[in-house]
């Protein structure tokens, strides 16, 4: 069953045509990895999926819900789509637990005790149960990103979107975040990941999608795309990354 079904997505920023008819299908429990040069529209595609960005055209169905229908309650639909950002975006005035429980209380309407129980469980899943009372400013970048993951998974979403979750981290902190993502994947979470962590893609991705200039150039298993790229642009991009 497809959890995400995006067809013919277009996005214009004024005169700039950023997405030119992108199709993306993500099956349940799949991890789809999106790569591509800077400015190719990866973030924009991800942000269209939960309508942080309004697509100019196309269709998006997530877990059976038509995301672009005017009859869809967008706040309700977003509960089922977790998102993790490059810059963490934790609420600096709340503790880790406060960050995780805000939506549980105000969106799901849980009472404080129930929300905190679920929040603690979510923090536990990213191995930060002992940091519940810390403010973001008292946590390392890697810990902050794991709290951000906990904030998203606490709502028990049907799919998780990651936009370069490790790009803002010092190298020694990347591992912990990738480990949390790997465990999430093992627990059967459906995931779309934009990232440059090729080793992670090889180990964990079911499918790799290569984007350039607002379009999907090719997609396939990690072995196919990394080992035997079909298009010149893909070859050039993979070659470039390989040298890092």
């Amino acid at each position: 069953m497809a959890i995400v079904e995006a067809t013919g997505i277009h996005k214009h920023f004024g005169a700039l045509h950023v997405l030119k008819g992108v199709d993306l299908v993500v099956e349940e429990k799949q991890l789809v990895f999106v790569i591509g040069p800077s400015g190719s529209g990866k973030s924009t595609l991800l942000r269209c999926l939960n309508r942080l960005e309004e697509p100019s055209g196309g269709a998006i169905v997530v877990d059976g819900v038509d995301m672009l229908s005017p009859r869809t309650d967008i706040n309700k639909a977003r509960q089922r789509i977790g998102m993790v950002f490059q810059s963490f975006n934790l609420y600096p005035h709340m503790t880790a637990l406060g960050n995780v429980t805000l939506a549980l209380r105000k969106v799901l309407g849980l009472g404080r005790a129930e929300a905190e129980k679920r929040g603690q469980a979510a923090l536990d899943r990213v191995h930060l149960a002992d940091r519940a009372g810390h403010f973001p400013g008292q946590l390392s970048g890697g810990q902050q990103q794991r709290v951000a993951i906990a904030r998203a998974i606490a709502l028990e979403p049907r799919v998780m979107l990651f936009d370069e979750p490790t790009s803002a981290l010092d190298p020694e902190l990347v591992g912990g975040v990738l480990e949390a993502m790997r465990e999430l994947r093992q627990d059967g979470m459906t995931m779309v990941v934009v990232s440059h962590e090729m080793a992670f893609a090889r180990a964990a991705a079911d499918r790799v999608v290569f984007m350039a200039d607002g379009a999907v150039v090719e997609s396939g298993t990690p072995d196919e795309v990394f080992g035997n790229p079909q298009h010149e642009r893909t070859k050039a991009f993979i070659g470039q990354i390989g040298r890092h």
Partner: protein
Amino acid sequence: MTNWERFVDSFFNARVAVEYFPKIVEGFWLTIVLAACIIVTGLAAGLLLAVVRAFAIRPLNLLIIFVVDLFRALPPLVIIALLYFGLPAAGLSMDGFVCAWIALAAVLMAFSEEIFWAGITAVPKGQWEAARSTGLGFLQTLGYVVLPQALRMTIPPLTNRTIAITKGTALASVVAVPDILGAANAGVSFSFNPTPLTMGAAAYLVLFLPVVIFGRWVETRFAWKR
């Protein structure tokens, strides 16, 4: 009388001081009440305008910007005079206290709206996006995520602006309000001695010096640390 004795007799006359002390105390309380009214309504109205502005409804925002600029440009005394001396000509007359309250609250509303708005826009876009991505609505995001951060940033400039505008309560004496300055002026004209003004100045110091010191403390306390 030597010059020194004349000076002391004019500004520190014990007999006059004793006689007008009760009036100054009454003015002191009146000034506090007026200031409290101005601060509460002015800040509330400023915050409300800033929140409305966050909805980004163009015609409404242009109106807000116009009103805000108007009250930032007009000298407070001119607004008070317009309300007190101008409105009766239109068949609407208001007490001097109410005129001063409305005028200064409008000025505080205008300045605080700008400060609140600057605070709201200073909160990174990522905060909105993170909150909205978890299903929080626009007002929930504003209320739980954006405003708490914005208000923290606005506290130092807001404190300073509030002190500056609240000192404008002295203008109320122009429209027959017996606040500290009003009471002191009345005392001077009855006693032909400026000692009540000295007492008035002392009363203002008693009132505002702690507030200014508090403002200084607030400024260091809320210096932004993330």
